[in-house]
């Protein structure tokens, strides 16, 4: 079933990572992702990997789900690492026609693999531990300065949270319609690619019809409760910075310093 995809799912919990301010989490994730790509030697790579592992352990979400989220990108990782292997500089270790593998190339391949894996794991850590509402709420607040240049921050955030809110609903609906059409003998497992695409029509049409119906209903319901955009709208839950957030920023600072120092004092591998 489609629901088996783990990437982007939220696992409710009470771990320290769950409790960190969602705004802080977004800022730190962004910084951490940049740091991941600023690692140029094995020591800093190890440092980044260790920290990713620590985040995973602290999040309290079963490791199994992190592996599940990696499953989606196995191919991307494989292809990029193989390609990188052939783009190294220096003396070739192995040569065949125009293809040659160098020590530098192998290093590059290892780096890109570890970096992508860390990137996915760290992002999963954010989505696993932050509810979609908190996430969009935090994004709206972080993007608030953009209001000055007439960027519709509230509208975008509202659209995002509505889209996220309807993902499970629509998945469930897809499941239901698929079951109903299968019960009428729809065959989605056999046939060539064209037949398979055609066999999705009985699912897609009812799905679109119901998505539009839901959208109209929701719009009416929002208007009935006097929704008219973000101006002057107050919030039910106001997020505040706490001690946990300060500590986590300190840890982030430590990681940045660590990686920068490594880059200065250890010779680069790539």
């Amino acid at each position, binding site marked *: 079933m489609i*629901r088996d995809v783990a990437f982007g799912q939220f*696992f409710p919990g009470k771990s320290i990572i769950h409790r960190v301010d969602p705004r802080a989490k977004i800022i730190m994730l962004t910084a951490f992702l940049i740091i991941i790509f600023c690692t140029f030697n094995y020591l800093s790579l190890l440092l980044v990997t260790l920290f990713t592992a620590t985040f995973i352990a602290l999040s309290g979400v*079963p490791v*199994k789900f992190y592996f599940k989220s990696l499953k989606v990108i196995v191919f991307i990782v494989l292809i990029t690492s193989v390609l990188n292997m052939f783009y190294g500089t220096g003396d070739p270790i192995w040569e065949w026609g125009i293809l040659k593998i160098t020590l530098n190339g192998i290093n590059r391949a290892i780096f890109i693999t570890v970096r992508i894996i860390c990137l996915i794991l760290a992002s999963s850590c954010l989505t696993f531990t932050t509810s979609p509402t908190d996430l969009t709420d935090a994004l709206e607040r972080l993007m608030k300065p953009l209001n000055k240049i007439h960027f519709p921050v509230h509208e975008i955030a509202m659209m995002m949270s509505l889209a996220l809110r309807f993902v499970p609903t629509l998945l469930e*609906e897809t499941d*239901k*319609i698929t*079951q*109903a*059409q*299968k*019960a*009428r*003998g*729809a*065959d989605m497992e056999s046939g060539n690619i064209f037949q398979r695409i055609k066999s999705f*029509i*009985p699912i897609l*049409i*009812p799905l679109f*019809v*119901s998505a539009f119906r839901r959208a109209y209903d929701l719009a009416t319901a929002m208007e009935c409760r006097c929704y008219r955009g973000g101006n002057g709208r107050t919030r039910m839950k106001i997020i505040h910075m706490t001690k946990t957030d300060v500590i986590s920023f300190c840890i982030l600072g430590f990681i940045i310093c660590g990686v920068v120092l490594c880059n200065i004092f250890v010779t680069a591998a790539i």
Partner: protein
Amino acid sequence: MSNILELKNLSYIYGEGTPFEKCAVSNISLEIKKGEFIGIIGHTGSGKSTLVQMLNGLIKPSGGQVIFDGADIWENPKEIRRIRFKVGMVFQYPEYQLFEETVYKDISFGPSNMGKSGAELDQAVKAAALFTGLKEELLYKSPFDLSGGEKRRAAIAGVIAMDPEVLVLDEPTAGLDPMGRDVLLSQIVQYHKERKNTVLLVSHSMEDIARVADRIIVMNNSEAVMYDETKEVFSKGRELEKIGLRVPQITKIMLKLKEKGYDVADGILNVDDALAQIFSLLKKEGKI
């Protein structure tokens, strides 16, 4: 009569191995005879819908077997589609599955998947439309232009057109007006009588179930806690109330009378029977 469906230690667990793991059906064993009209009742979330979805192999049981006509339906997973034609399934709010340009085409989706065509197909579609009371001129309209009740009929016709040996209906009357409910229910009964096939009806309306079912499966907390003749089940009013269900109003009145010491029979299911009982009681006491 022989058994058409047999469930052996059937169970189903949602999201096995995730934090959201939930047992929806646990260890159900029962037999359904050919030509029976079975009612399935139980409060929301008791596992009724999951149970019926296993009957035609839409979901694979986590444990146990579904035996149709003597053979396990999962014996040959590639042939599961053939079981779905034999065990027809009408979902809750089936009108949301309509997709074709015309009602006629939509009803013919099932039978044409079975390989029917030409006159045979035409006959199946028209017969199904007749059973559900769809007027002929509606067949050539877009399903999205029909009223709610008509859409429901069209969707049910889409399953009936496959002429299944077992017809499973999950809350077919939910959201219809009282008149629409009555008419649809009598059409299902009529269909059952004429085709002599097996019908399973899931419903929240005890009145509906009391009216039509021969036997009733009562579900509670993913288990089948009762499976007996309609009369027997509804004579256990107290037990039903304990699991969040109730008996039909008229049955309840008669149960109360009995508790007060009047000599009336158990499990009265309709007003006519109740009237007869009360009249005979009054006569016996010499009041009329």
